[in-house]
């Protein structure tokens, strides 16, 4: 990674070490209170997940014969299997679309003149709306009979499609029961105990409109993050590369992008956090979908705990989600934190 040395003073080691210990102490209060709100509460939740008959007004943490039965039944549950599949696909595609589109839109907006504020506003405004209501609006928009499909007809695209393919162009969007692809057989071989998979391990087409809706709402935030990064690139760097006669694309590739890497990571982490916990938007927009095509772990936890009144199942589902995140996200975080600090 290229370093721009603008000072020739060597670091003063002694002062630094004393400062470092003080820094640790200054971080401690935040760390402690967050730990209480997170880890102490999670411990309580683990207790609930292992309990046999825990109820809000009768918090009985006593375990039954097989406290892990709740977890076993969870993985056997077709609905939870669908949730894991949906969460994975949704998160992956959502991140792909939002981060990449957000980046390119930020680049374009950054280069605008007086229209900068206007564009920034247009793309950021969706983020201001409540998820509950945007879910409803997008459900209307994706209605196969009265929503965006009408544009396909009016623009002539549907007619063209019909003349080429001979069949109607009427995307089903949320009403689709189709799942594209099925790697279930492959998974059965790789994952131990994979025979318990009851659902089609492919991409439910009903997830596509949901991804579009969420991307629409969060793209402005990704754009804002990258804009913040772009305006923070010191002028000296831009000027230096300009004097070197570098063209625009070279500037981006070798200077701007590496400097934006930490911001990209932040955006990724935050959007992953949003995607994994998505609830209101999908609940309002699609419910659980045909055959759980759009069901998400968040919805499952909500309904298990407060509708089915099975608190241990809901708690167990939350812990499983957290465990999966730990396994996937933690090594990534540790590695990138170490790398980005290499400055």
């Amino acid at each position: 990674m290229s370093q721009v040395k603008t000072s020739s003073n060597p670091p003063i080691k002694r002062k630094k070490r004393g400062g470092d210990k003080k820094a640790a102490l200054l971080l401690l209060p935040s760390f402690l209170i967050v730990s209480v709100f997170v880890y102490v509460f999670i411990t309580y939740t683990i207790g609930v997940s292992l309990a046999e008959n825990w109820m809000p007004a009768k918090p009985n943490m006593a375990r039954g014969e097989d406290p892990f039965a709740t977890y076993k039944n969870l993985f056997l549950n077709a609905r939870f299997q669908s949730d894991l599949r949906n969460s994975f696909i949704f998160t992956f595609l959502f991140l792909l679309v939002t981060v990449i589109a957000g980046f390119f839109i930020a680049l374009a907006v950054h280069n605008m003149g007086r229209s900068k504020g206007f564009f920034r506003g247009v793309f950021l405004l969706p983020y201001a709306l409540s998820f509950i209501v945007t879910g409803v609006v997008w459900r209307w928009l994706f209605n196969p009979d009265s929503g965006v499909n009408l544009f396909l007809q009016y623009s002539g695209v549907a007619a063209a499609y019909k003349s080429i393919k001979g069949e109607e162009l009427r995307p089903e969007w949320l009403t689709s029961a189709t799942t594209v692809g099925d790697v279930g057989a492959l998974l059965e071989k790789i994952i131990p105990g994979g025979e318990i998979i009851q659902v089609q391990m492919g991409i439910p087409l009903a997830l596509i409109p949901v991804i579009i809706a969420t991307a629409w709402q969060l793209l402005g935030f990704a754009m804002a993050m990258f804009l913040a990064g772009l305006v923070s690139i010191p002028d000296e760097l831009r000027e230096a590369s300009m004097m070197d006669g570098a063209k625009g694309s070279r500037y981006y590739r070798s200077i701007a992008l590496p400097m934006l890497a930490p911001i990209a990571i932040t955006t990724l982490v935050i959007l992953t956090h949003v995607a994994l916990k998505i609830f209101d938007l999908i609940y309002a927009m699609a419910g659980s979908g045909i055959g759980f095509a759009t069901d998400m772990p968040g919805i499952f936890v909500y309904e298990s705990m407060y509708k089915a009144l099975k608190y241990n199942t809901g708690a167990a589902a939350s812990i499983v989600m957290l465990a999966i995140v730990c396994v996937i996200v933690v090594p990534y975080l540790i590695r990138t934190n170490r790398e980005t600090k290499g400055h």
Partner: protein
Amino acid sequence: MFKAKGKVGVAVFTAVALSLSVSIAPANASGKIEVFSWWTSGSEDAALQAIISAAVKANSGLEVVNAAVAGGAGTNAKQVLATRLAGGDVPEIWQTHPGGELGQYVDQGVLADMTALYKSEGWDKVVPKDLVASMTYDKKTYSVLTGVHRANTMWISSAAQKKAGVSLSGSLTWPTFKAAALKMKAKGIDPICLGDKDIWTAAQLLEALIVAEEGAAGWTALLDGSKKWTSAGVKKAVANFNEAMTWVNKDHKALDWTGAVAALAKGTCGVNIMGDWAYGELLVKQKKVDGKDFTYATFGDSNTFVTVGDSFVIGKTAKNQAGAVAFAKAIMDPKVQLAFNKLKGSAPVRSDVSTKTLGKYQQGAAKVLANGKKVPSLVHGQALVAAAVGQAYADAVTLLQANKDVAKFSRAMDAAIAAN
């Protein structure tokens, strides 16, 4: 360009609601009570306000805090209630469903016993015995009902019927319905309106079909586990359901239940199996006329009433017990029962309430409630089974829509009932 019509509509509505604010026998409870429900807007809220204003009028000094939370067909409210119960911040009055849900509150020991109140106020004589039984555990009664909705009503669009040349009424057998449905389909009308973005609407349709095939006794047996869900009646009902799903409007997954009722009102589809909260929707929002624009029938025996009761309980450890009792008394007052159900569209529970001023449909429903066979709705959490069984049923229907597999459905239901 903009008319004052809308404003007048709101004013009239408010005036009606206020004028229905009835006077009941004054009592003496005072102080603050908190009423916790999931009724927050439209006719639900107006109906709740009818009770609140009556209670406040009868008890000078009583202040009612309306702590309602909407969403999730009551699940949002249950979420809040669960945390409040866990934290010991118990409201005086809260809403629940008679059946398994009520049972789980009884298990937690948070409810006040109303048995004495039923005797002293004479409610045990005017409320149908089986309704009281659904709210009684271990010989103790724990809640009062504001009204009972019916879940297995088939609403029929008169325009669609006329266009297809059919006329459905009374108790319908499947062959009769099928013939009519095919006629509608031939005329380009979707026979069934369905808005199942929220799966309960489809689950309700299946429930009506199962009750039609199994009858009241069979349904009760299925719920208490004495009959398996692999029975012939269930198999037939599921087959009918799968067939019915080929007759629904194509955008059903993208519509909620009000969207389906709107389609019915327009006449683009033929029938809609929906609880009679659709009655208010048709009358007030869609401005349709009972008998002229829509009629009603039932799958199977029209004298079988699938109940969806709305009940309220008293928190045992809440601060203002006297105030809570006063509110319960207001709920059960005959005048309030009438006023409430006029706005809500359900049937009053007291047999001594005259239904003459209610809509034509409601009069019919009240008669069946009084004299017909009552069975609890599993979809709406009325059955005397754990709430988890209702959830399992909803999940099983979701899967059934995708895989049409009768055997899997039956297995899932048997397992759920056995496990709970």
